[in-house]
């Protein structure tokens, strides 16, 4: 556990150093942190043995909340909680229905909701400008409107701070009775019921928390890219979150961030090196992870320590 904190601290310092040394990487790393926060939610559901194939809908909710509100209220310190609130609210409503289902039904129903959201975002042109997407208006930070380079640093810093906060939160949650019961859903759900523990409510809490983190991740992405399109709700975007979750490993709250950083870096460098073939490279990486490192990047690192 102490190693985990040490690695997290080193990772955070490493990210800051990279963002400082290679300025254009700041953008990539901010996106990685934002996705890592969203993937923490995937990790929670994985602990319960469930996979959501539509989780990017919460990214989209967070991102579009920022895009819609920014013209009238551009304060980041208000936009972030607003995005979290919207995603949490939708997560609660959908969750009340979804936690009745398990496995493939759970996964596919999530996908169905995400597809509905995607087509709404695409078709309601007058509101969303369809596939053109919405440009995010200039943002203000605690009342100030700093110049662009400073803004990028601020969003990066907020993403890093929130990543640490949510990482710690998820870590305590997983060690708590609720988190252990969540893992119990995967192995012995009936036993939970025979202990008087409502399994659905246990899963609902995790689902709502995962929606919240998805919304925050999406808001950070919108604040970084400054342009939001329906693509963010598309099923490939959900697939990407699962990909990152498996790549990083579900064994630790660090996994999603290891996975997201690796994913974004591979994507950037592979795309630069071999243009159209980067998906093939990602596919090959995923294959290797599943075959040789089922615990993901985190699993590789922690195995090294134990050996």
């Amino acid at each position, binding site marked *: 556990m102490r190693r985990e904190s040490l690695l997290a601290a080193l990772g955070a310092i490493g990210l800051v150093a990279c963002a400082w040394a290679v300025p254009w990487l700041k953008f990539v790393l901010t996106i990685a942190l934002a996705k890592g926060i969203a993937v923490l939610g995937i990790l929670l559901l994985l602990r319960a043995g469930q996979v959501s194939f539509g989780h990017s809908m919460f990214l989209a909710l967070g991102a579009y909340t920022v895009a819609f509100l920014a013209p009238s209220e551009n304060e980041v310190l208000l936009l972030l909680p607003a995005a979290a609130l919207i995603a949490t609210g939708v997560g609660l409503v959908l969750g009340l229905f979804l936690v009745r289902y398990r496995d493939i039904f759970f996964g596919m129903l999530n996908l169905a909701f995400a597809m509905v959201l995607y087509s709404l975002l695409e078709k309601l042109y007058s509101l969303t400008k369809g596939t053109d997407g919405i440009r995010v208006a200039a943002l203000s930070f605690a009342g100030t409107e700093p110049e662009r380079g400073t803004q990028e640093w601020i969003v990066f810093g907020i993403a890093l701070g929130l990543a640490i906060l949510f990482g710690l939160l998820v870590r305590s949650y997983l060690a708590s*009775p609720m*988190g*252990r*019961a969540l*893992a*119990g859903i995967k192995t012995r759900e009936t036993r939970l*019921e025979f*202990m008087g523990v409502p399994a659905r409510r246990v899963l609902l809490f995790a689902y709502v928390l995962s929606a919240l983190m998805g919304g925050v991740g999406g808001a950070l992405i919108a604040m970084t890219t400054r342009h939001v399109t329906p693509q963010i709700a598309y099923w490939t975007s959900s697939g990407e979150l699962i990909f990152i979750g498996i790549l990083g490993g579900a064994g630790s709250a660090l996994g999603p961030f290891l996975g997201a950083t690796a994913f974004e870096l591979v994507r950037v460098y592979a795309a630069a090196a071999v243009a159209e073939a980067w998906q093939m490279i990602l596919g090959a990486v995923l294959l290797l992870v599943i075959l040789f490192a089922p615990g993901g990047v985190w699993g590789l690192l922690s195995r090294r320590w134990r050996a």
Partner: protein
Amino acid sequence: MSEVLLSAKGLRLAFGGVKAADGIDLDVRHGEFLAIIGPNGAGKTTFINMATGYLRPQAGRIEFEGRPILGLSPRAIVKRGIGRSFQLPQLFSEHTVLENAALAIAARRGIWSPLAPLLRPRWRDEAMDLLDRFGLRPVAEARADALNEGARKLADIAMAVALEPSLLLMDEPTSGVAAAEKMAIVETLVRVLRSTGVTAVFVEHDMDVVARFADRVAVWSQGRIAALGPPGEVLTDPKVRREVIGIAADA
């Protein structure tokens, strides 16, 4: 001490043509150890499933402490004070034995704290204490799926006991346990259960165990209770010996 704790009347449940319960009348008395014996498929597990809300009988009534419990969910029935253990132990296989016990303690004390660890000092001590009473302390840190069958059975029962039920229904607490271990396990079990004052119903195929620990024996046969009484009478009944024990002995 012959106050009735659980009372079942006229329970019927058929699966297709199979009458798993065909008019079960049974009063479980406060404080007793009641053994249920009978051949495979007689409906013993079905009775436990009905009493714990897992299966709903097609006819009949069940009262616990004088109040009807029919139609309540397993969760609601647990809260009323009926615990159960399983013919196949239902442990959280990826968790350690200690975590399994602590989770059961948490289930009673309230699990809704997302920030405090499950193994907080007080619950850890309480869980260790529980495991100690069951002789499971040496395997506390082992993963539940690494245990031998005897230890799994005990851990399964320990989790039910952690909920502090007033009635405990145990489905074959010694099945699958090596013969040499069996008596030791039952003795541990009986010692713990006596110390808690819980009323216990247990399904058992081993007649030595029944003779030694049961206050009364109910003989199940094709969804009915064929005989009920003290072991000294029931187990010596020639009809029971021929029809039930003869079959059960090679089960």
